[in-house]
């Protein structure tokens, strides 16, 4: 039986996700997708240590107060970590210097792989004293240029801190090191009857420390809430090497300021997360998934309202994509199959339910879907009959970032917008872009999170000028957020004011100054340049 399962899997899933191949830093086998032109934001030879962002000229200069790496530094790290954990290999560095989209590239000459909190602490203590800037790096799947160096920052890769420390089988509280890959945690928990409260397309590579540091949302947020709720405790190392042990495993603990929240979503700018304690829900046996077609955006919205009301207790995901997204996936993702091939529809919605009673849940979902169909909200749909069908439906939604990569250049925007206004922006962008680029939109409708992607054959400043600052201004006007879940990173550090008041940003700056006075942690990211008085 196993054998059959294996062959079958091979046939249906012969195309592994692109980022799966990249999951191991030590394997140098990045396979550039065909037809994808490597985009360089700048020409290193011409403007060393100077980054020019297209025509919207934001120039970042290397912070002059930082020192540069020398051979004594390297010897120190070798002494501290051992030869093997100090990587100078060019191929490995090229991978680690380049982000998942191949859009941002740094020029770091050194990657460190600490194995313990103590090692992280020693590294930071040393770097801080030497004023050497660092980038904490998890799975390097971040989408805002936050996980790669801007110039020559030392890369601190967390992949070797991948031990699971404990799982309390009564409460479901998992304690693990920051470098654990999300998918490994998912399968570890599966064996013990639990699930991770978050799931996202990058699960094969991204790490829990990266997820926490970006406060990743993902596909199950609508059910289990954000990491600010599920993360119970953290251990983090500050820039000066101090280890802050906040690794509580209590659901309730009101003693003073809850500092762990500062590290959830601060993108490695305040400290390096080394351990995480997280509340994991029990795995429920009955999971159902429907892939549906809607003819207009209003129906998607109404369907969401109805689903929340009528499936409330079992609803675990509500995702949407538009017809441009479907078209893109079918053309660029190997093995993708249209679940509703008889005609193209304007919108597609995935509704997942998770519960404990197979027949009750299925009946409930079926009844809901049939009544929605009779009511005209859904024009067609399929219900997965087995896990394999469910995976192939999910593949369409989860494979979108990969398909976009394969299609060429992509400008990504991750916006929180009140659900009823959300698609107006997409319509407006289509008019703005005209024939120059395709507007692909999908997202976590259940959370009011739109992923707006502008896909073009090549990166082109003219295209960028059509998008920015328009998208940010529009979002700000409609009281949205310019980063729903991906973070600000390098891409949007200077755009923070579109979503936060100057006073708020000022406080953030003070916190940064307090925890990282020399600014060595993930410099140039998250907070605007204007705020860092380092140069």
């Amino acid at each position, binding site marked *: *039986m196993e054998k059959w*399962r294996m062959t079958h899997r091979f046939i249906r899933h012969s195309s592994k996700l692109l980022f799966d191949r990249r999951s191991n830093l030590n394997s140098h086998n990045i396979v550039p997708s065909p037809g994808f032109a490597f985009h360089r934001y700048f020409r290193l030879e011409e403007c060393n240590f100077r980054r020019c962002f297209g025509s919207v000229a934001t120039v970042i200069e290397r912070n002059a107060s930082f020192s540069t790496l020398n051979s004594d530094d390297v010897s120190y790290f070798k002494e501290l970590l051992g030869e093997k954990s100090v990587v100078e290999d060019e191929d490995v560095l090229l991978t680690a210097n380049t982000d998942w989209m191949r859009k941002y590239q740094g020029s770091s000459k050194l990657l460190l792989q600490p194995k313990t909190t103590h090692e992280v602490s020693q590294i930071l203590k040393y770097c801080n004293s030497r004023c050497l800037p660092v980038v904490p790096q998890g799975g390097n799947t971040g989408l805002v240029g936050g996980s790669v160096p801007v110039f020559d920052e030392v890369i601190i890769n967390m992949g070797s801190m991948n031990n699971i420390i404990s799982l309390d089988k009564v409460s479901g509280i998992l304690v693990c090191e920051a470098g654990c890959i999300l998918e490994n945690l998912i399968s570890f928990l599966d064996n013990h009857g639990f699930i991770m409260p978050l799931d996202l397309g990058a699960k094969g590579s991204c790490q829990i420390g990266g997820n926490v540091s970006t406060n990743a949302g993902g596909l199950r947020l609508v059910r289990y809430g954000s990491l600010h709720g599920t993360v119970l405790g953290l251990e983090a190392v500050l820039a000066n090497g101090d280890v802050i042990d906040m690794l509580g495993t209590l659901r309730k603990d009101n003693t003073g300021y809850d500092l762990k929240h500062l590290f959830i979503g601060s993108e490695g700018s305040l400290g390096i997360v080394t351990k995480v304690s997280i509340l994991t829900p029990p795995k429920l*046996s009955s999971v159902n998934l429907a892939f549906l077609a809607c003819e207009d955006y209003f129906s998607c919205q109404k369907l969401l309202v109805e689903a929340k009301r009528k499936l409330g207790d079992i609803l675990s995901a509500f995702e949407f994509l538009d017809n441009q997204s479907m078209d893109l996936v079918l053309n660029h993702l190997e093995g993708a199959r249209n*679940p509703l091939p008889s005609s193209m529809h304007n919108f597609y919605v995935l509704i997942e339910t998770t519960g404990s009673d197979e027949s009750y849940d299925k009946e409930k979902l*079926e009844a809901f879907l049939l009544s929605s169909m009779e009511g005209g909200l859904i024009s067609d*749909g399929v219900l997965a009959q*087995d896990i*394999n*069908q469910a995976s192939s439906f999910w593949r369409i939604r989860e494979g979108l970032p990969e398909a976009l990569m394969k299609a060429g250049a992509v400008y990504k925007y991750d916006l929180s917008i009140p659900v009823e206004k959300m698609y107006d922006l997409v319509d407006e962008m289509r008019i703005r872009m005209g024939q120059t680029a395709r507007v692909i939109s999908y997202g976590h409708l259940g959370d009011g999170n739109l992923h707006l992607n502008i896909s073009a054959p090549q990166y082109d400043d003219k295209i960028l000028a059509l998008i920015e600052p328009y998208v940010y201004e529009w979002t700000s006007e409609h009281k949205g957020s310019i980063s729903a879940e991906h973070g600000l990173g390098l891409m949007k550090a200077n755009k923070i004011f579109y979503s936060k008041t100057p006073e708020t940003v000022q406080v953030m700056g003070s916190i940064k100054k307090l925890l990282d006075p020399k600014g060595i942690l993930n410099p140039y990211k998250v907070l605007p340049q204007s705020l860092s008085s380092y140069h």
Partner: protein
Amino acid sequence: MKIMVAIKRVVDYAVKIRVKPDKTGVETNNVKMSMNPFCEIALEEALKIREAGLASEVIAVSMGPPQCVDTLRTGLAMGADRGIHVEATTGLYPLNVAKIFKRLVELENPGLIFLGKQAIDDDCNQTGQMVAGLLRWPQATFASKVVLDKEKQVATVEREVDGGLETLSLDLPAVITTDLRLNQPRYATLPNIMKAKSKVIKKYTPQELNVDIRSDLEVVQVTEPPKRKAGVIVSSVDELIEKLKNEAHVI
């Protein structure tokens, strides 16, 4: 012409199989069950033939515990016209299933029977052959292509064999078992799920069909395969050759 299709309810192929602690079988409690993938392919082929106007009705048959009705509903939602459930709470082995099938064939008179080449739970790969044997009908196993000639009442079947394709020509009625590459089964659409709700599933027991389901087989023990030892990464071709010679003893 009617087509009869066997569909079996098995542990979902994507589920990691666990052997029961007492080694009497595999764990099926709280485990996702689905239609055997080869049976899905069998059903898809039957539906295609009906849609091409070469058959009038597709009857899905499932045997086993009451929950087989769920599997039959899936079959009906895919497009089968009606279902037959032979309820049996004790284990059924291929010969039992084949005997029951023979009785159902006598009742329904189909012109063609499709079965999956094997079920992914017990991997027996026997039922189709036994059904053909008991009925004395021609059989084509492991079909990767099926073409029906209604006039001549002949089915032409391609099978994947070592080194190429074998083409068989069978007089109807016949038994065909299906392989992976025959087709890609369709999904159950909402309108069809809705229609399936009013389709009939007729229930029998083996007793009603006069079939003795005592078995002359006994499963002694089910155990997990030995765990694979972790591999090692060799640093050079020489080391590889050395290991193949002195550790694996294969060269």
